[in-house]
């Protein structure tokens, strides 16, 4: 049972994914605020995509490490 419980422990991988995407998102935000100034709706949609990426990456990496 403990092996299966390890599947559901997403903390480690979750942190790793957040750290992995942070520089890219920070880079984009810097550009958005200083130069790009894209419409808010466009950016909001983009961040939905980023959220999907984060969720997907967490599942993917967890699956790779465990399975």
């Amino acid at each position, binding site marked *: 049972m403990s*092996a299966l419980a390890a599947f559901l422990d997403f903390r480690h991988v979750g942190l790793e994914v957040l750290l992995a995407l942070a520089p*890219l998102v920070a880079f984009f935000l810097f550009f958005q605020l200083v130069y790009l100034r894209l419409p808010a709706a466009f950016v909001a949609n983009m961040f939905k*995509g*980023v959220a*999907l990426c984060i969720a997907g990456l967490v599942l993917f990496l967890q*699956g*790779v490490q465990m*399975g």
Partner: protein
Amino acid sequence: MQGFREVFKEVSLAILPITAAVIALQVLLVRLPLELFARFLIGAVMVFVGLALFLQGVKVGLLPMGEAVGGELPKRGSMPFLLFFAFVLGFAVTVAEPDVRVLALQVDVVSGGLVDRHTLIFTVAAGVALFVALAMLRIVLRVPIAWLYGVSYLAIILLSFATPAAFVPIAFDSGGVTTGPVTVPFILALGLGTAAVMGGRSSFADGFGLVGLASIGPVLGVMLLGMLFG
């Protein structure tokens, strides 16, 4: 969520064959312990769902982000600015690249922790960053691309004799994994954007080539890392 069906189909094509192969092996030949097999199946489902979500996210989020930043960067004046941010962008996208993480994890496990995965990711990212910046410099200074490739590959061949043999295959794999679903849209957009903004260059002839150049950096980087470790 338009286009999700397409992504789903893509991911099925990528994952079902290997899963089917393992199941066939399990049934016909090896008979792994049931717990291990269950782990594999659950892992495969997670990879499947994860990859589908991720690819959809790339399409909705990272692709337009790459186009926006890649197109904007070259419009903002000076050379040092362009080179510096090309370097930072190259680094940031590589750190976010899932392929790189999978390779680094495997190397970490197989080498028994000798090559720590953070060290490898950092080396690969630095290599990509350097070569993206070099590739931008090439577009601006109009250095023929064949020349840049020639020198870089010569360096790779020479270094591959000097590096401990164990690191040479990892180095070449590192070059392959950098060009994944996060890196490619950003770097392509950067190259095309730069060629479009600079006067007198055609996007077609000068805008491409960055992805190929970007994958040279990690090969050189990991070989140097190998010499450091060996």
